[in-house]
């Protein structure tokens, strides 16, 4: 059992960390960027002054679970399958995942390693990108609609890739495909046939119990998914899909929004807190190489995709600059599949993710230039 004095010390440390995070969010607000970069920097700075507490891990896990629950709950298949959205989502997948995957396979990498690396390189960060669009007051710009739907499409592809990769058995000791696939199947069936009833039932639950019900269910199903060889994020996503038909997402959002933001903030903080760089020439060369290729491929996606959906020249340029950033999903995959990656790639991808988050800011700055 913990001594009261040590509990008090941990709480003081947590309080101080929260204050530093609040300060970094404030700075980000003034320089008009999403706060998550501030949390990441706060983590990098504070790793020398504090030790890692279990509560950081729990909060960041809560953040990941609630983030994927949120993604599942806002999924709009109708929006995704609209011709122009589907066109740019497909183009993005072909250029930013398939191209890397095929090159790596041709270079002789095993399919799992190639898949994990291509998955880390593939997604633009929806949390950071949408956060930045809001901060920069660009929600009404013509390209914003394309960007957010592209992000939704990427989020879905990421969930599918996560299901495939975990089944390929990179990280988990228990990987019984039958259990995993049965879990997905049952969750999808409930989502299709009982979603409306379950959502109606939820709306009848008194407000004070509603958030606990949602949080408890998302967490339990997330961990259940982990136990059957999937990932907690996938379980939470499938549970979130049960709420996607109702169109009353603002109710759910009101109840879990704060907790999700706190958890996601700790996810970024913890990544910064744990990150250490091995800056040898090979790692740096590989990181800079993949950085150049990935920025080029996203630029291509924005330019060609923008034309495909009928955006003008300026909006296309803004789109191409806005989708550089890699963030939470790349970090998550890096964490989940670190064992599957060769050390050189692991170190280079870590550097790549951090550099890309900051270079993404340059992209955003350029996108706001007239």
């Amino acid at each position, binding site marked *: 059992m913990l001594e009261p004095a040590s509990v008090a010390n941990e709480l003081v440390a947590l309080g101080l960390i929260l204050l530093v995070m609040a300060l970094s969010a404030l700075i980000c607000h003034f320089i008009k960027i999403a706060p998550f970069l501030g949390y990441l920097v706060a983590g990098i700075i504070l790793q020398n002054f504090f030790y890692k507490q279990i509560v950081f891990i729990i909060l960041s896990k809560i953040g990941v679970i609630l983030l994927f629950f949120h993604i599942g709950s806002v999924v709009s298949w109708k929006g995704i399958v609209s011709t122009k959205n589907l066109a740019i989502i497909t183009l993005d997948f072909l250029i930013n995942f398939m191209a890397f995957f095929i090159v790596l396979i041709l270079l002789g990498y095993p399919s799992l390693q190639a898949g994990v690396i291509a998955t880390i390189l593939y997604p633009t960060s929806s949390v950071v990108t949408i956060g930045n669009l809001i901060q920069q007051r660009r929600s*009404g710009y013509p390209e914003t609609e394309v960007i957010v739907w592209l992000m939704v499409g990427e989020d879905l592809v990421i969930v599918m890739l996560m299901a495939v990769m975990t089944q390929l058995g990179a990280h988990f000791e228990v990987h019984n495909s039958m259990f995993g696939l049965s879990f997905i199947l049952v969750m999808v069936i409930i989502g299709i046939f009982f979603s409306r009833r379950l959502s109606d039932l939820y709306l009848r639950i008194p407000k004070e119990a509603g958030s606990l019900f949602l949080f408890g269910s998302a967490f339990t199903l997330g961990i259940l998914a982990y136990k059957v060889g999937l990932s907690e994020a996938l379980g939470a996503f499938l549970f979130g899909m049960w709420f996607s038909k109702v169109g009353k997402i603002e109710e759910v959002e009101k109840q879990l929004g704060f907790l999700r933001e706190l958890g996601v903030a700790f996810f970024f903080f913890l990544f910064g807190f744990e990150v250490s760089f091995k800056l040898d020439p090979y790692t740096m060369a590989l990181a800079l190489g993949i950085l150049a290729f990935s920025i080029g491929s996203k630029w291509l996606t924005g330019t060609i995709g923008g034309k495909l959906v009928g955006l003008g020249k300026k909006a296309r340029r803004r789109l191409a600059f806005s989708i550089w950033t890699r963030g939470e999903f790349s970090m998550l995959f890096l964490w989940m599949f670190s064992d599957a990656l060769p050390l050189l790639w692991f170190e280079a991808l870590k550097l790549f993710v951090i550099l890309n988050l900051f270079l993404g800011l340059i992209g955003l700055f350029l996108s706001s230039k007239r």
Partner: protein
Amino acid sequence: MSPIKVQETELPGIGKKFAFSLSSGERLVLVVHLTGEREVFLFRPKEEEPCFQLTLTDEEAREVALILGGAAFEPTPLPQADMVLKGMVIEWITVNRGSPLVGNSIADLQIRKRTGVSVIAIKRRGEIIPNPDPSEIILEDDILLLVGTGEQMLRFRQIFG
């Protein structure tokens, strides 16, 4: 007069976007954020950057909507087709804790008799109750959809606000 065609688009993670072309050829884009904040953008013809941009809080937006809707002052006569609604205001009112409305039915409160305003719907925990029964009890956090003249709305606010 041809009806204005409003293009409505979902912006996942942000909110909802409403866009329409004005008779001047400019394009007006309104974004209602999930947080309740509203953003207004005005684009000149063929331009891809707004020439005007404004951010409003939820409360400010409702106030502006009332004024733009002619609740406070109506300078020009409305076309014949709109005469039925002339002078009418539709407004959403949130029932806060401690409001005299809480815990009473519409009939008990005699809302229409005392103010002239009609409760045409109640939004409760995300669900809409259209044409609520007079026996419907009003709860805290309910959002009432009211219809009446600007004057009647004012009376409602004086009595129940």
